[in-house]
């Protein structure tokens, strides 16, 4: 059996198209750096983002080559059942967009990062803890992007393996350059251009799949080669998985830093809500379209496959051993040369034999696991190999340009997101010598570098009450007090109107803030450090299972406790710092169990365990140790008087 290797038709023309698109992006990204004057310009583009550009920015940040790869892999191994995650995403986006759940309140507070809210609600220690977990989980999450994306580029462009590292380094440097210099302004503009490339590439590949395989071919592949699975998500994936996905997507859409930064960058909360409604359908496509590519790849390679027979042996166990040994010799080479039509039937046969024999011989389970892992590996590379086989020269260049645009925009968005957390929520608070660190705003700038004055909330007002107490009372007279965490902006305006520029920041307490220039430098240095870490991590880490699950579990490391602590802080008066701290520690520990191979927890169990423990820790901690007066929802975060007493 000698299947022909696939050779990519990627030519000089394709390379030129891809490189030109990269240079154009870099040029645009660098040109706008002159608009960056303050940390607020840098991180949230002075909150001037409109609806359509916001939607483009949000989607291009959350779509990279890796997204296409893991979604295609999910479609390849789970068939149409995988589509349910797209429907969940759409439902969550519409819910958030229609109700403004969490996002409206966070947007109105005019914060720069999600952990910033934790300081105003729970205190600095929770902010730093959340920042550490977010930076850790986010960096682990981002850390496998380059190595997986390098595999895509190697297959589709045929770049020799010795140049792959340099290629990825080059891509990271492009993203690093304009992100470090231009921040969110660069991102918004480049994201728009990148979105156009990305969307064009996505449409081209989908049409090519439909032309090559057709919908009926996909249906036939799922019917014929998935053993009765691939249709019903409840039966195939389980209620536990679906529940976990719902929770995770609510968290991703509300408190995932790169998404939240887009919310913070919108002109106002209403635009933020519309942005989510609009992008709901784009996120549906983000899931379903590459899943269709994966199913197309399944149909494509099964269509080229020849029947394979089980080795002759006395027992089924012996047959499996022989088959496994044969795969051990050929599998890696087949994967590297695109001979998936040879590897796939053998893996399929091994899995079927193991499943049949499992009841009689527990040893067969080992072969079933091995076959499943190999199917996952094939699933990851099947889509790029199919593209290399079916796309002609010229079109391939356009598609690669679209993929590179998707990828670089993701790197750039995540660099800015995670580095802002590291700089603003970990390093800056720790550098601050005393009191609560304060991020200076433009309106607070008192010197050439925009350094803010020191607020003294206890200085008396005209009636003897503390100045900010008086401001709060005037801003929120009894009877129209707002719930927890809402009105930083209105309070700020009120205080400014009173001529007290020192108190224009929520949560100010005897602070000694870094200057704007220092914060900009700190964030830029962090972006560079993060890039170096990602390059190293992607080289040393070995994935324990499908990329889709790894990415979601590393995200879940902090997503569950972050959402719970935000929602609890906004909507539950008794929420306390102890509850939030316990929630973060337990939620993260539970999520990490998936990454420990010896525990053998499946992804949905680890995910749901994380949510359950995060909720339990939050509730128990808050009930056992109620909030102290200073951490109760105060005027600083807009809490009601009743809540403070």
């Amino acid at each position, binding site marked *: 059996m000698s299947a022909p290797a696939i050779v990519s038709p990627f030519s000089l023309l394709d390379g030129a198209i891809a490189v030109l698109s990269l240079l154009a992006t870099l040029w645009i990204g660098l040109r*706008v750096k002159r*608009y960056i*004057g303050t940390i607020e*310009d840098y991180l949230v*583009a*002075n909150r*001037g*983002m*409109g*609806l*359509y*550009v916001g*939607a*483009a920015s949000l989607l291009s940040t959350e779509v990279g080559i890796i997204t296409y790869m893991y979604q295609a892999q999910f479609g390849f191994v789970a068939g*149409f059942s995988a*589509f349910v995650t*797209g*429907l969940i995403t759409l439902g969550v986006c519409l819910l958030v967009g229609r109700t403004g759940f969490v996002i409206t309140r966070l947007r109105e507070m005019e914060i720069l990062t999600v952990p910033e809210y934790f300081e105003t609600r729970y205190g600095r220690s929770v902010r730093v803890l959340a920042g550490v977990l977010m930076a850790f989980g986010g960096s682990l999450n981002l850390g496998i992007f380059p190595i997986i994306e390098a595999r895509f580029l190697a297959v589709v462009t045929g770049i020799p393996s010795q140049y792959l590292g340099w290629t990825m380094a080059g891509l990271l440097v492009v993203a690093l350059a304009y992100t470090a210099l231009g921040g969110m*302004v660069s991102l*918004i*503009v480049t994201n*728009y251009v990148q*979105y*156009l490339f990305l*969307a064009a590439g*996505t*449409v081209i590949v*989908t049409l090519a799949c439909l032309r090559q395989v057709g*919908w009926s071919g996909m*249906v036939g592949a799922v019917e014929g080669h998935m053993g009765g699975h691939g*249709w*019903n998500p409840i039966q195939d994936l389980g209620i536990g998985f679906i529940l976990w996905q719902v929770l995770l997507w609510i968290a991703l859409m509300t408190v995932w830093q790169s998404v939240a930064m887009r919310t913070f960058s919108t002109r106002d909360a209403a635009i933020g809500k519309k942005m989510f409604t*609009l992008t709901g*359908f*784009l996120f*549906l*496509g*983000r*899931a*379903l*379209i590459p899943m*269709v590519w994966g199913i197309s790849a399944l149909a494509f390679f099964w269509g080229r496959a020849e029947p394979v027979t089980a080795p002759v042996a006395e027992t089924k166990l012996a047959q499996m051993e022989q088959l496994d040994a044969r795969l051990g010799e050929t599998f890696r080479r087949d994967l590297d040369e695109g001979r998936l039509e040879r590897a796939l039937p053998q893996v399929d046969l091994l899995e079927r034999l193991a499943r049949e024999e499992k009841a009689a011989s527990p040893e067969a389970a080992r072969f079933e696991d091995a076959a499943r892992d190999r199917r996952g590996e094939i699933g990851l590379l099947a889509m790029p190999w199919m593209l290399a086989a079916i796309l002609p020269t010229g079109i391939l260049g356009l598609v690669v340009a679209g993929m590179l645009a998707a990828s670089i925009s993701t790197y750039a968005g995540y660099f800015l997101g995670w580095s802002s957390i590291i700089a603003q929520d970990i390093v800056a608070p720790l550098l601050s010598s005393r009191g609560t660190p304060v991020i200076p705003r*433009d309106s607070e700038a008192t010197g050439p570098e925009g350094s803010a004055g020191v607020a003294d909330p206890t200085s008396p007002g005209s009636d003897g009450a503390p100045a900010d107490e008086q401001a709060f009372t005037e801003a929120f007279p009894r009877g129209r007090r707002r719930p927890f965490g809402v009105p930083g902006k209105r309070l700020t305006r009120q205080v400014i109107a009173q001529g007290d520029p020192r108190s224009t920041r929520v949560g100010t307490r005897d602070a000694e803030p870094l200057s704007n220039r220092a914060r900009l430098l700190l964030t830029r240095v962090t972006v560079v450090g993060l890039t170096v870490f990602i390059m190293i991590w992607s080289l040393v880490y070995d994935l324990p299972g499908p990329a889709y699950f790894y990415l979601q579990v590393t995200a879940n490391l902090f997503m569950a406790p972050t959402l719970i602590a935000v929602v609890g802080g906004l909507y539950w008066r008794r929420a306390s710092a102890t509850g939030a701290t316990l929630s973060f520690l337990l939620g993260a520990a539970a999520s990490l169990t998936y990454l420990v191979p010896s525990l053998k927890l499946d992804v949905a169990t680890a995910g749901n365990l994380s949510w359950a423990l995060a909720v339990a820790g939050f509730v128990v901690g808050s009930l056992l140790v109620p909030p102290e007066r200073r951490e109760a929802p105060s005027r600083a975060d807009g809490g009601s008087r009743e809540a403070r007493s």
Partner: protein
Amino acid sequence: MSWAFFWLVTFVVAFGAFSLISLVIAIRGVAEIRELFSALEEEMRRKRS
């Protein structure tokens, strides 16, 4: 309704919506970027003065 038909309809909606919204973004986004630059330039002028 079979699963195959349900997933076909879902895919058609997803692909159609993605293509259509992308087109709208391509057209309307240019004006928004101009507005963003104008606002940023205005902000810079305000700070300088």
